[in-house]
């Protein structure tokens, strides 16, 4: 019954709690907090009496009236010397490269009047596609908490003094160490070598998220200490053993794009994805078959897989359900042969060695797994770091340079590192912020933000990617390469040094004359000679030991998996309010981390499983080897009972470090909360301390943990509570690949998986002589409204979203957020369902029950619904991007009393803010619940002072000047990026040519790494969106209500066997 799954939007819906039912019928809670406001003590303490208040009011009204009659004086300040390439009002794009230690993407940076305001993929020549973390990173440039000058002993200083101090610090006896993340820049490496030569500094690399086991396993099995490159585009079967490669694991952005290429049902075949995990990851939610295994069983799952494939492994400690999953995965792997691929996320050398054996047995070496192709990602050496910490604690380290990493936050034993750091005579950090590590260092030599700096980066041996500055440094910062060189005694600027890396003879006279370089900067990369590939030889000597190591593994009461959220990553952007507010694609929770638990476990412990505006989550205490953490518990469907998950990347700035205003919790008044000692309260808790280490490798999982209820509660802000699709299969349509292929040639509306939805009419239209339930007419044929002429006239903007490709990564959400100046409203407002995202991704879980099954088993209607409310233990998931559907028969338009929302003849539902008087009738009448109301003046009201970028004098520079910042009391919603369609039309008119398909594209479609979103002119018969729209998988959400949207969805096709 794969075609008739029932989706429910969350556990609240399943429970049908009174609060949920109330919310279901009302998008906006009727109750306004007037009583709360009046009862507030602060009101009594205020100095302003009622009479004064009336006086002020009277004066303000009069003043405002008078002021309205005056012409406002606006200053207009032109350049004194206008740079040739800048025309005010016209955007410039520059190719650059983003690398933060995890994500590596070639990007285009959009600048307006010299300000970078948007980051998008460099799709023409670039590597990878942006994700939420990359496109939101532009906000970090303008963070007012960034260091504005070098610091020495906590006080601002100048560079000369600082350099003197560092050089003195480096002249001491003992170990002198440069600690970095994985360095991908040839120039920076060269500077490190120069520093080592001049001062004897040793270089230690340490990643915040260690991939040490993979690198070590590669060394054992192939003799090369590298992170392999995985070619997902070549893979026909992918098996993920707790590797969230679509969200956070490895070179995510590259894998995502490549994997999506294999998932087009129109090609007649799709790759198949098996996932083995304990909690629900983004990859697991997109898996064709997801098997739930405990962290302690992962190694044995790998062994069982190997056993199925070539008999070398073993079967130990796995139950029937897991073995069934293993058999299914092994069968698909064997069918794919060399096009099979197994990836494992556990940082465990034994598991990784077994995975290597599987990939080798499949013959995948050279097709989907390459040991030698890509340059070094994830080169951290955890053993060297452990030795360093030991030496620091023993006082053997005289100087430490920390460059681009933050071990005081992310080290598994941060306390040991900090204790060691206190014993280092001189330490200096190149951090942008006085973060956990930098604030403990003697000196800080702040680096440029990536948008301010020249850089060269290399992930692909055939090319050097170039990052170019898109703005002058905002503050008195210095390129880290230049700092290292200065400390090595070389006075050379970073740019010259970088040019000399690629052309030793470079001199300033040749700055603009090297055409190869100019082309490289324009395209974003320099092609370099392809190094000869040397095939890797598999030794297999480590396999027996690895199998033995995993065989006896057993877990305790609870097992823990430490994962990363798609939005927050390793936490380096904790001060980015847009990322904090972007809901996690699975839990739909913002501004927090929590313990994901199975519902059954929570019920057994008496914890609250219903989390809503006024129903906070129960706080639990998770203890691992004596280390405890207290976090709210979140009931996660699909979580294996007996396991818990906690997201890393939270709890930044626990020592009051200045890492950005948005990194700390705020109270209802908008001020930062402070604990008893007056310290700011970070968002969430730091779980790196629970990671544990095995032979210096952080394990990020624990096999024996205790979970105790504390009796405390903590509110969580989830965005998905106010929707219901119970029993409405017109919202999400799906089928299996076999089901699709069986009717691949069916006309749209004919296939069993995408039938036209019919409505009954009171007329004998089928001619059977009576008026009955069989008299149905297609929903699209009903017309309550006058025809709105959009077909064939001018443009008709339309969008098609392929649910097969959409993985829920939320890159579109952040792209939309930045492009359209959507305000950040903070946890308290999100909790009240006043989130402002124009674009959201609805996540629906499937239930094992349907009306048909209920009928078959002879249950009554009510019992059937009750059964349908039972969650599937391991539900399938759908991610459905939802934004204004731009209905041609828009219910919102008919109820607006002031015609503030109207239809254009380009098919766009227009929202005119300056006309809106805020009745909110439109939001109430919207079947998709996509309209957002400005409850407050977000750019000015105190409550948002520490959250909304528009309230920060510097951060507001990120606002898009082509979109107005809405004021209080108006409704807003997706405009299909009308500023972009208008711009594209203008370009076409100027050129005097028909509008080219693809020249107008919305921010979400541009950001989508899997090309799930197609946008264009439906009236252009040759456009891509027209073709997608005419696909037989295409349907409209809630087709039966006949609103005729211009946004369409494509039936989700899973590559699962027919049930």
């Amino acid at each position, binding site marked *: 019954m794969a075609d008739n799954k029932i989706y429910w939007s969350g556990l609240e819906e399943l429970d049908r709690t009174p609060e949920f039912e109330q919310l279901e019928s009302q998008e906006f809670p009727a109750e306004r907090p007037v009583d709360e406001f009046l009862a507030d003590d602060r009101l009594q303490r205020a100095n302003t009496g009622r009479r004064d208040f009336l006086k002020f009011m009277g004066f303000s009204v009069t003043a405002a009236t008078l002021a*309205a*009659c005056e*012409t*406002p*004086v*606006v*200053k*207009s*300040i*032109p*350049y*004194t*010397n*206008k*740079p*040739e390439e800048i*025309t*005010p*009002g*016209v955007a410039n794009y520059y190719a650059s490269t983003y690398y933060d230690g995890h994500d590596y993407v070639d990007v285009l940076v959009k600048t307006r009047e010299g300000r970078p305001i948007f980051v998008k993929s460099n799709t023409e020549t670039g590597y990878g596609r942006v994700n939420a973390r990359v496109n939101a990173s532009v906000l970090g440039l303008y963070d007012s908490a960034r260091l504005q000058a070098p610091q020495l002993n906590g006080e601002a200083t100048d560079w000369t003094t600082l350099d003197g101090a560092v050089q003195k610090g480096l002249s001491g006896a003992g170990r002198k160490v440069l600690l970095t993340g994985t360095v991908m820049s040839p120039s920076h490496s060269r500077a490190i070598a120069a520093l080592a030569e001049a001062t004897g500094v040793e270089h230690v690399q340490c990643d915040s998220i260690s991939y040490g086991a993979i690198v070590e396993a590669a060394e054992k099995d192939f003799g090369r200490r590298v992170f392999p490159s995985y070619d997902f585009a070549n893979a026909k079967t992918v098996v993920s053993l707790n590797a969230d490669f679509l969200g956070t694991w490895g070179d995510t952005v590259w894998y995502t794009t490549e994997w999506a290429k294999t998932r087009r049902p129109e090609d007649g075949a799709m790759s198949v994805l098996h996932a083995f995990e304990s909690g629900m990851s983004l990859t697991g939610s997109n898996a064709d078959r997801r098997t739930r295994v405990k962290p302690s069983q992962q190694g044995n799952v790998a062994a069982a897989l190997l056993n199925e494939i070539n008999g070398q492994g073993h079967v130990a400690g796995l139950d029937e359900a897991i073995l069934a999953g293993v058999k299914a995965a092994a069968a698909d792997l064997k069918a794919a042969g060399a096009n099979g691929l197994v990836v494992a996320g556990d940082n465990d050398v034994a598991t990784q060695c077994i995975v290597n054996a599987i990939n080798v047995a499949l013959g995948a070496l050279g097709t989907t797994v390459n040991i030698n192709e890509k340059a070094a990602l994830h080169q951290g050496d955890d053993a060297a770091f452990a030795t360093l910490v030991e030496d620091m604690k023993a006082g053997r380290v005289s100087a430490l340079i920390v460059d681009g990493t933050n071990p005081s936050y992310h080290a598994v034993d941060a306390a040991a590192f900090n204790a060691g750091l206190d014993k280092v005579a001189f330490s200096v950090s190149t951090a942008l912020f006085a973060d956990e590590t930098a604030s403990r260092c003697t000196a800080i030599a702040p680096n440029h933000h990536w948008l301010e700096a020249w850089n060269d980066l290399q992930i692909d041996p055939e090319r050097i990617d170039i990052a170019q500055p898109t703005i*002058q440094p905002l503050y008195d910062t210095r390129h880290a390469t230049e700092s290292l060189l200065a400390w090595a005694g070389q006075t050379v600027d970073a740019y010259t040094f970088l040019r000399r890396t690629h052309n030793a003879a470079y001199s300033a006279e040749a700055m603009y004359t090297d055409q190869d370089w100019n082309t490289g900067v324009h395209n974003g990369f320099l092609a370099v000679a392809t190094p000869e590939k040397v095939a890797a030889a598999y030794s297999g000597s480590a396999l027996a030991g690895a199998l033995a190591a995993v065989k006896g593994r057993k877990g305790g009461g609870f097992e823990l998996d430490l994962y990363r959220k798609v939005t927050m990553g390793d936490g380096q952007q904790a001060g980015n309010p847009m990322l904090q507010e972007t809901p996690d694609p699975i839990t739909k929770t913002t501004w927090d981390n929590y313990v994901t638990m199975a519902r059954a476990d929570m019920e057994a412990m008496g914890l609250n499983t219903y989390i809503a505006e006024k129903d906070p989550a129960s706080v639990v205490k998770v203890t691992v080897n004596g280390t405890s953490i207290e976090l709210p518990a979140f009931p996660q469907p699909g979580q294996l009972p007996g396991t818990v998950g906690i997201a890393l990347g939270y709890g930044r700035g626990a020592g009051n470090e200045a890492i950005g205003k948005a990194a700390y919790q705020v109270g209802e008044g908008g001020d930062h909360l402070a604990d008893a000692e007056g310290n700011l309260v970070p968002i969430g808790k730091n779980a790196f301390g629970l990671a544990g280490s095995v032979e210096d490798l952080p394990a990020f999982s624990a096999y024996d943990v205790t979970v105790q209820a504390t009796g405390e509660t903590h509110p969580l802000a989830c965005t998905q509570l106010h929707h219901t699709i119970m029993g409405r299969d017109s919202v999400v349509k799906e089928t299996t690949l076999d089901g699709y292929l069986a009717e691949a040639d069916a006309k749209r509306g004919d296939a069993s998986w995408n039938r036209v939805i019919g409505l009954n009419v009171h007329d004998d239209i089928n001619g059977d002589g009576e008026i009955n339930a069989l008299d149905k007419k297609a929903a699209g044929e009903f017309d309550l409204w006058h*025809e709105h*002429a*959009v*077909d*064939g*006239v*001018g*443009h008709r903007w339309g969008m098609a979203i392929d649910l097969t490709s959409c993985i829920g990564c939320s890159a579109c959400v952040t792209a939309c957020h930045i492009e359209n100046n959507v305000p950040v409203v903070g946890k308290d407002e999100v909790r009240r369902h006043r989130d402002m995202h124009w674009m959201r991704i609805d996540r629906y879980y499937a239930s094992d029950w349907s009306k048909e099954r209920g009928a078959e088993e002879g249950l009554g209607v009510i019992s059937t619904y009750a059964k349908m409310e039972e969650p599937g233990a391991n539900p399938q998931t759908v991610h459905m991007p939802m934004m204004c559907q731009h209905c041609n028969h828009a219910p919102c338009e008919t109820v607006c009393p002031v015609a503030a929302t*109207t239809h*254009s*003849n*380009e098919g*766009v539902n*227009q*929202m*005119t*803010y*300056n*006309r809106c008087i805020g009745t909110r009738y439109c939001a109430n009448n919207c079947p998709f619940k996509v309209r957002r109301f400005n409850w407050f003046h977000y750019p000015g009201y105190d409550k948002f002072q520490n959250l909304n970028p528009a309230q920060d004098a510097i951060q507001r520079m990120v606002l898009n000047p*082509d*979109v*107005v*910042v809405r004021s209080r009391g108006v409704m807003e919603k997706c*405009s299909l990026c*009308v*500023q972009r369609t*208008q711009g594209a*039309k*203008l370009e*076409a*008119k*100027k*050129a*005097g*040519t*028909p*509008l080219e398909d693809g020249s107008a594209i919305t921010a979400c479609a541009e950001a989508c790494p899997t090309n799930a979103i197609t946008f264009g002119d439906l*009236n252009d*018969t040759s456009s891509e969106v027209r073709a997608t729209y005419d696909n037989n998988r295409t349907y409209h959400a809630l087709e039966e209500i006949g609103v005729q949207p211009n946004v369409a969805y494509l039936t989700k096709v899973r590559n699962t066997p027919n049930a």
Partner: protein
Amino acid sequence: MLSAPSAATAGIWDEGNIENGQALFNANCASCHKVTNEVLAAPGLAGIADRWGSSEEILVQWIQNPQAAAATGDPYVKSLVDRYVGTYGWMTAQAVSADDVKDIMAYVQNPPDVVATADTGTDCPTIYDALEEEQGANGTIWFLILLTLFLIIALSAATVRRSLERAAQEVAEDDDAPYVVRLRAWAWDNIAFVSILGLFVVAYLVVIGYQGLMGVGVYQGYTPDQPVKFIHSVHVCENEVDCQYCHHSAYESKHAGIPSTNVCMNCHKAVKKGSRYGEVEIGKIYAAIGFDAESGTYLDGEGQNGYQSPQDDFQGKPLKWNKVHNLPDHVFFSHQQHVVVGGLECQNCHGDVGKFTVGRIAPVEEINGLVDDFPGLIELSKPTLTMGWCIECHNKAEISFASSGYYEDIHERLKDDLRGNEELRKYLEDEKTTVKELGGWECAKCHY
């Protein structure tokens, strides 16, 4: 930019097209050179053919790339450099071909409208007097008031005498009653007079109130003071500098833009003294960009119009102009759309700026008055820079489908019976399509 082959330069003095040359001259040369002997920002060009002492190739090169021409070591060019560069600075390299130069030279030697141009000079206002005209606009109101008063007097004249008589009678009868009561009694007795008077008072207040409210947000005639007393009439009318020479981004962007100071310096590096305010106002430009008028050098030491980096000792001090044409934040107006695509003249919205001093919002009546000089101008009735004014024009302005491939494509879609929509094909019936019919009245065209 190498010197052109001699075949292209042959007959440079006498074979060009005068009309084409005039257009080229106005576009490229007129901001600095005149065709007479008069010096503008550079020597006048009258008699150039007689005095040019070098080859035609060198002439073309001298125009295309003066520095390169000087580098050839040509003695005549050297003499030019010695004589003029110190005073006027290097000429900006011009992107013109050898054929263009031919046309320009034809025009320079035989300027057909040189006399006419000289004559129009007298039309240029020497003093800004529109302000006085503004005062006259209130005249209508005073006329209405006076008319009302006159009518009241005329209508009531007949009853006054009778009223007075009756009043006197009543006073005699009821002297003790309070004033209010007596007034009411009087009003009751003179009901016709009081009613008419009341009607006029109410009508007057309504008219005044209505006009007052309609005037909220109307900024016709708004002429803010500016940091530099820039005189448009001197630049536009007397010296015939094209609008786009300074406001060039009207063609490239949605903003017409206020020229950056380096644009001023193109001419004012040479023109150091203004005709009205002498060195005072031009001195403000020099102070902003950092230019020493006496030595003729930039303080940042980077030569002419050198790009200043923040590391330079001298930081530019931008001029803080007061914006004249203010639109609210939620209005997105694009100059490009109207000037490049719509082909509108600047005067259509800004009036005859050549008659202004500093920037000013031209009242709609003033703009309508230009219709004889600008045949394409669309006469409108609503006040300038109000939404009514915008959409009135969108209702009247027509789109020529043949004007561009873009509109041709849209037209084809409208005509297409298979795809075209019945309801909207009516737009094609009257043989003309206005901006409104293609969606020019839709909110999201300007508000987003």
